[in-house]
């Protein structure tokens, strides 16, 4: 069976050159970068070269890069770290309603520890309004965190404007750029953010390694205590092969972003167009223009997302959904709900995230498969039958559905 991977927002396959760059560090160059002998020094050299490459790709200085075990740790280090370092100055924090759980749940945990958290709302496209940030800022605000690109709906936030507002007020600004790196240009020389998180496996690098950019002079507490690694900011023997892989991946990722993004956006728009045209009752979620070049998120009404994913998977298409049934919790995606979708529309969401290996052929093939799956599932969907009936005899009111919720 032909398998097509359309879930690059979840993770990406590693670039072959990244593996090639990593391999020596699983072999001869196995030293601990903290050791002072030649084995250690070779390792240290590779570590510092990786830091330089990573910094260069972001427009940062090498001393501003802290390697972590991934995006989640980077987000936690930024948020918990600032909260700890500045708790004497103030206890008010601001974030958006559509952040990834690594950010949102960290703020939730802080709100249980005596911090006050303001959630900025988003419009129907998932966009934060800078005016809302201006109104939310207080004298005791110590940190604002707004993601650069949303992982579910792909919406790009006005980070330049948001961060400038914070810079003027002297408030630290963190952005979760986990989905942005490699997809849109990021130049930290010009963007006044103080902290930025990234995760290698989202841009064709290895899993289990990420980084936090910490602008020089930014005060930051820490999550772990231990050895002197990463300027004591993040102790533990460094994941050297992973770090070398991250550096290689980001080096590759930032080559000709505009060109790659344009090609991918064209593919994305072809996919969106086909879905909207060829399937009835489909709506696009997220922003029509300000969105990640590879992100497609649609709600296919009267079909439940997890069932659709399963059917697609059985036919070789790998995708994801904001349906509650895929999350383990009983709630549908907080992102779609924050955009104002009703439960039914949120349950019927389908996210397709393109990667560099996807072709127009893949896209067209996927559309065919999705069409078939949707038709099959709608055929047994109570909601679809109700909709058809209402459409055919518009006078009939929709029945109430009773609810049995068990736990």
């Amino acid at each position: 069976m032909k398998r097509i991977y359309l879930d690059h927002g979840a993770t990406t396959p590693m670039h072959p050159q990244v593996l090639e760059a990593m391999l020596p560090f699983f072999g001869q160059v196995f030293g601990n970068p903290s050791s002072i002998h030649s084995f250690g020094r070779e390792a240290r050299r590779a570590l510092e070269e990786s830091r330089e490459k990573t910094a260069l790709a972001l427009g940062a200085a090498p001393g501003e890069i802290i390697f972590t075990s991934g995006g989640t740790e980077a987000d936690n280090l930024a948020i918990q770290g600032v909260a700890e370092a500045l708790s004497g100055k103030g206890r008010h924090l601001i974030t958006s309603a559509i952040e990834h759980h690594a950010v949102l749940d960290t703020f939730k945990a802080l709100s249980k520890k005596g911090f006050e958290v303001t959630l900025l709302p988003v419009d129907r496209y998932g966009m934060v309004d800078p005016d809302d940030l201006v109104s939310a800022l207080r004298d005791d605000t110590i940190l604002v965190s707004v993601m650069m690109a949303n992982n579910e709906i792909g919406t790009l936030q006005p980070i330049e404007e948001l961060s400038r507002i914070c810079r003027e007020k002297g408030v630290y600004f963190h952005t979760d750029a986990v989905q942005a790196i490699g997809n849109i240009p990021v130049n930290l020389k010009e963007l006044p953010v103080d902290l930025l998180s990234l995760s290698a496996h989202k841009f064709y690098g290895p899993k289990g390694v990420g980084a936090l950019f910490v602008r020089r002079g930014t005060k930051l507490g820490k999550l772990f205590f231990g050895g002197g690694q990463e300027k004591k900011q993040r102790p533990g023997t460094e994941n050297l092969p992973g770090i070398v892989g991250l550096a290689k991946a980001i080096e590759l990722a930032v080559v000709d972003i505009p060109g790659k993004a344009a090609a991918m956006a064209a593919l994305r728009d072809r996919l969106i167009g086909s879905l909207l045209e060829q399937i009835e009752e489909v709506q696009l979620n997220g922003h029509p223009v300000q969105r990640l070049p590879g992100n497609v998120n649609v709600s296919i009404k009267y079909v439940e997302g997890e069932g659709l994913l399963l059917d697609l998977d059985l036919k070789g298409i790998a995708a994801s959904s904001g349906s509650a049934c895929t999350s383990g919790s009983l709630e549908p995606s907080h992102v779609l709900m924050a955009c104002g979708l009703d439960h039914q529309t949120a349950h019927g969401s389908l996210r397709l995230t393109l990667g560099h290996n996807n072709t127009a052929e893949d896209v067209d093939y996927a559309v065919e498969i999705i069409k078939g799956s949707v038709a099959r599932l709608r055929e047994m969907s109570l909601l679809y039958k109700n909709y058809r009936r209402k459409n055919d005899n518009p006078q009939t009111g929709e029945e109430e559905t009773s609810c049995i919720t068990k736990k």
Partner: protein
Amino acid sequence: MYNEKVIDHFQNPRNAGEMFDPSGVGEVGNMKCGDIMKIFIKVENDRIEDISFLTFGCGAAIASSSMLTELVKGKTLDEAMKITNMDVANHLGGLPEAKLHCSNLAADALHKAIEDYRSKVQ
């Protein structure tokens, strides 16, 4: 996640579709939880002669609807009333923990359909 039997019922659901002149119908679930099921039965001589379902829901919801219909077709109403959601899950060879309580409601819908039928014939 799902075992082969569940996948089989999901891919080849038995007795899916509307029934046009049912003796009873039962519906459970709500939009918030994401699963809604409706069971249609045709009753003759106190037996379930025919049964069908419509389901908006995840793989587990569809598979358990299908399994339920297969389980009770031909059974007497009293026998059918004894079937539980857990029986359905067991006949499917088990469902993921998270799905047991939210998507495994087909027996409830059936019981409602039987009650609906009984309330009408009384």
